[in-house]
């Protein structure tokens, strides 16, 4: 199967739910399990929150999401034109956060990395950050799969 979609929205934290639910609905055509859908929603939420909190530092900006399905793989690209990351390797370390004062725990990249099959981070200081994630949705016997309604609810 092949499919593609694009989303653009402003960097307000009340758009986080909208973003992850839209991606979950898009992926639901692959009949993911509850756990796969939940992993994808969490990974999307991490990347979008990072763009809002770190990329744009709560100022107004645009967040772009592109999703592609090729066969049983979902590719998700989330990008901002915000402040960028100086040292990507350091940023990806578990528990590293540049904003401990805002009660961040530094687990966002670790969650994206472990919940998805692959994570790529491209960032240029002052230009922006692009996160590319991919995950294969396993083929399962029908009974374990979710309907679209369940995916949205779960």
């Amino acid at each position, binding site marked *: 199967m092949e499919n593609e979609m694009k989303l653009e929205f402003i960097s307000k934290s009340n758009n*986080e739910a909208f973003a992850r639910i839209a991606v979950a609905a898009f992926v639901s055509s692959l009949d993911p399990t509850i*756990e796969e859908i*939940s992993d994808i*929603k*969490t990974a999307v*939420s991490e990347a979008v*929150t990072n763009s809002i909190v770190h990329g744009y530092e709560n100022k107004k900006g645009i967040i772009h999401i592109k999703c592609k399905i090729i066969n049983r793989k979902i590719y998700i690209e989330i990008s901002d034109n915000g402040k960028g990351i100086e040292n990507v390797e350091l940023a990806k370390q578990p528990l590293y956060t540049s904003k401990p004062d805002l*009660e961040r725990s530094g*687990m*966002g990249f670790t969650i994206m990395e472990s919940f998805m099959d692959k994570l790529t981070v491209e960032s240029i200081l002052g230009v922006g950050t692009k996160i590319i994630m991919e995950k294969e949705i396993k083929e399962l016997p029908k009974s374990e799969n979710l309907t679209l309604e369940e995916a949205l609810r779960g």
Partner: protein
Amino acid sequence: MLSLENNVGDIETGSFCLTFEGTKRTGPIVPIITGGSMEYKYLENQKILIFKITEEIDEFKAKELRRKADYEIERFMPKRVIFDFNRVSFMDSSGIGMIIGRYKQTSMLGGKMELTNLRPAVRKIFEMSGVLRLIPEIDLEQEELPELQQNFI
């Protein structure tokens, strides 16, 4: 047994009604306050404060939860704070920061904190980040106090 009738408290109007059945009551209970993303119950004699989070936890919701929880923790200075996650079907790393922040505040005021009713997706995140090594997960069914076994609403 404590039971709540339809007209439960509303934080905005401040009007609430509690009914008690039987005699198992062990002390005054500050009623459950509903509205927004969290409800709470306070057992005054035991100094136990229980929060029940009723929505998904992301950065947007975490802001509100932080503000509400801090207010109640400072007001009651409880010995035990329990966060009930029964109705939380989604949580991202914003929840980790929110819980650790409340843990620090509770500890600073001399109380301890516990988590309960974690769903698999939420437990996965707490486990991964090491939160469960710091803040234990408890089973309310194992508690002796009837008020703790009692479900909210």
